[in-house]
């Protein structure tokens, strides 16, 4: 009996060993560079033996809602520092982050690390300058990060953050709908006229189907304006900024958009916050044939609806020709003013933006790190549907209106009003008038 027991134990042991080997083999199959290369820790960081530091990290809800990558990053970081650090991640809707940071800074209880549009945060005096820390880091920023992303963490020649990701908007369409109406897919040379014609042809009220999905989100609408050659803000931090909401180009572009809405080419936008998600939902439901979306939309559709007949194109050509551009977006990690554990916070920022997590972030979140090496990496460019996105990144212009919250609010009101019957020129003129003197949103002293 004893012998049987020993034999059984041996079998169980062997099975466990084989299972372990199997798991190990499966792990090895992960096709990612740097998978085994954790970022280095900073030996200069002195951590008390008996006291655990809690690092408060605020992240965009879109980065944590459906994936645990940042929890894993935090766990790795904690382990690297012998669990003397507790990374406490709080997630918020990205659009609400600036106001939350402002309140926290004013209350004297800022978190240690925040994800956001660093340019706007720095411009409002909400971020700690990091030039000295960048110098100590001993990396060459220009060789490491995309210039456009670096610009979005820089305010008046001072770096206030580390770029995390970069993105722009492209044109997403349903290939099956185009096939059904016998239209060619939007190629590299389609224009506004083609778009308008296609929107009309694809709209079929009987089938409850529309050619276009609309949004009133200012960041998205800005894409229309800048693609038509317009802009809402001119100037630099070193000079004065000028608000140009009601420029002729902007009025024409917004009118073109709202006219298509008035013509019934798309369902009226709900105007709720993040109503760009409505367009995506309608698109996935087959009720909308085209809409503007980001790489996260491509990722979401491909991961949740792998059989969806998704097509991706760059934005249409416009009379603005070479000066046309999509919107450029980039989030970074920064240290809010007055944060408690700034040394450790910067180490976490370096950790989270390291190469180790670049591919997982792209693959699992559909968020693309602003690393130069990634742009030509086969791991990054493996998805053919992303090619228009990469091309569009070359012609993208940053959106800086969030530097002036009242102006952005006025711009959004004008967009909403335009979609609901107000003449775009009138709405934009009113928005321009209501803003008054331009100062980076109630900048802190």
């Amino acid at each position, binding site marked *: 009996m004893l*012998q049987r027991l020993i034999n059984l134990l041996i079998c169980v042991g062997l099975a466990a060993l084989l299972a372990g080997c199997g798991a190990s083999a499966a792990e090895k199959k992960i096709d990612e560079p740097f998978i085994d290369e954790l970022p280095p820790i900073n030996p200069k960081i002195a951590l008390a033996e008996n006291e655990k530091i809690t690092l408060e990290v605020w992240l965009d809800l879109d980065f944590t*809602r459906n994936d645990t990558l940042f929890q894993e990053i935090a766990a790795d970081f904690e382990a690297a520092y012998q669990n003397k650090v507790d990374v406490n991640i*709080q997630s918020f809707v990205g*659009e*609400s982050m600036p106001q939350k940071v402002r309140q926290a800074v004013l209350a004297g209880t800022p978190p240690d690390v925040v994800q956001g549009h660093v340019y706007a945060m720095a411009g409002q005096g909400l971020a700690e300058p990091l030039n000295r820390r960048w110098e100590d880091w001993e990396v060459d920023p220009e060789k490491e990060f995309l210039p456009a992303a670096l610009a979005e963490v820089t305010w008046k020649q001072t770096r206030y953050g580390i770029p995390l990701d970069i993105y722009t908007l492209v044109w997403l369409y349903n290939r099956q709908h185009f096939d059904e109406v016998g239209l060619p897919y939007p190629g590299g040379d389609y224009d506004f006229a083609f778009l308008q014609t296609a929107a009309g042809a694809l709209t079929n009220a009987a089938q409850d189907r529309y050619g276009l999905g609309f949004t009133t989100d200012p960041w998205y609408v800005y894409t229309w304006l800048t693609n038509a050659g317009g802009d809402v803000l001119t100037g630099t931090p070193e000079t004065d900024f000028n608000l140009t909401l009601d420029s002729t180009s902007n009025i024409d572009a917004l009118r073109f958009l709202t006219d298509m809405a008035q013509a019934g080419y798309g369902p009226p936008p709900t*105007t*709720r*916050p993040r109503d760009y998600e409505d367009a995506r939902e309608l698109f996935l439901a087959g009720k909308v044939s085209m809409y503007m979306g980001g790489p996260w939309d491509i990722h979401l559709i491909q991961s949740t609806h792998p059989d969806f007949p998704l097509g991706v194109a760059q934005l249409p050509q416009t009379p603005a020709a070479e000066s046309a551009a999509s919107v450029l977006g980039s989030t970074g990690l920064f240290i809010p003013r007055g944060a408690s554990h700034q040394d450790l916070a910067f180490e976490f920022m370096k950790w989270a933006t390291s190469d180790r997590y670049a591919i997982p972030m792209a693959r699992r979140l559909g968020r693309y790190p602003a690393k130069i090496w990634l742009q030509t990496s086969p791991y990054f460019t493996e998805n053919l549907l992303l090619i228009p996105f990469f091309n569009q990144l070359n012609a993208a212009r940053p959106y800086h209106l969030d530097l002036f919250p009242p102006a952005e609010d006025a711009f959004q009101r004008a967009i909403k009003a335009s979609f609901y019957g107000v003449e775009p020129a009138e709405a934009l003129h009113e928005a321009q008038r209501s803003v008054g003197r331009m100062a980076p949103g109630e900048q802190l002293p």
Partner: protein
Amino acid sequence: MKTSIKGSPAYQYYQSRQHWMTQLRSQAILLIIILLSLMFFLTIGVTFLAYQRVSQSLAESRDRDLASVSAERLSESMLDFARGLKILADQEQMQSGEPTLQEQTLQRGRDLIAEFTNNDGGVIILNPQGFVSVTRPFRPDLIGQDFSQETYFQNARAVPTSSFFFSDITRESTTGEDMIIIAVPIVNTRDEFIGVIAGRFYLNFQRLGQEIQKLRIGEEGLAYLVDRNGRLIYHPISKLIGTDFSQLEAVQRLQKGDRVGAITTQKQPGTVEGYAIVDVTGWGLVIVEPWSQAIQPAQEALIPVVVVLIIGLITVAIIVSLGVQRVTDPIQNLVTQTRQVTAGDYDAKVALSRIKEIRELGMAFNEMVEQIRKYRAGVRQYVADITRTQEEERKRIARELHDDTVQSLIAINQRLELLKETLDQPHEVRPRLAEVKTMVTGAIASVRQFSRDLRPLTLEDLGLTTAMKYLVNQLAQSEGIDVHLTV
């Protein structure tokens, strides 16, 4: 060629293992270990159950308290949301019912309603008929919408003196988004119902979950918030938000009016759940802790117990092994010595054990061997004596034959030689023949006597005792000595 399995190495190995298994020592140790293991597992089981009960009780108590305290904290947070709306509702311009003035009031009090307007559901004002008259931020899609059938509006209109109402999950008609609404009736100084100011939270934005998110319920625990219908207002797994959880026992207890409590669900995976009503809202907060986490302290507390028991088990096994060895070694020695005796070594002797029974067994063995040895010596002596006696008897027979029979036959032969020379003298032949005859008769008598001496007839006819008596008498008579026979 046919190979016998008995000759195979595997069979021999098996036989050797079997041999090992049949040893008294192995079996004794195995039996003791089995018994100790049984005791070990019983002890562990009983201890674990006891710890588990205590841990469960503590976990339930802790989760109940945690749920209660968290619900109070959440209630305070919710109250803060409502307080800002209430302040605005009490403003004179708000009570005027004029949308423009109401909008201006919202503008002035934007900090009070920032939580709503901060890219969330925003704030709306309904007129006395339930139509949306003002929105902040600007929501043209909502302006003019009829919300008169919404429960929160009807409640506010029915009881305008109430401070506020927290809705259950409701769906925004224009967007299809699930949301929570905090409604505050607007009543003027003449107690006339002017409308409702309502703050709205989209569930998707998880704004309401931030307070709950801060709760730390161990490594794997979680907390969720349900409305009065059992639908999830907040859950850490955002995909579940809006799901109907009314089938869960903790939620059902909340719906039945149980304000605070805790339960343990045994259904896999088991959980310990604390629950409490969030006072201001009427919603329910549930804290869920995996059963494995709840009993983790018990498991951790058991580790030293297990270690001590294992050390004890090993120690006892070693002691038992040594003890058994003290019993089995003398027995093994006895076996060895017995084999030596069997092989003919009668000098074998076992060392005496200190154990009484084993010592007595050893002494008996030694005595037995001594007896055998003596018996063997006696037998050997007997055989030697027999051999010697036979030899002497042979010598005696030879001597007898030589000294008597042979001499008689030689004398007869000589007489016959003399007789041959006197055959021609008849008168001398007759006496000589008579003399020869006498000599032959004497020789025959002597041989017969010799034969009788070798095996007396009396021995066969009368038996050994009588024969011996006969011999004694003969000896006494013939030799004239006094001989006594005792049998």
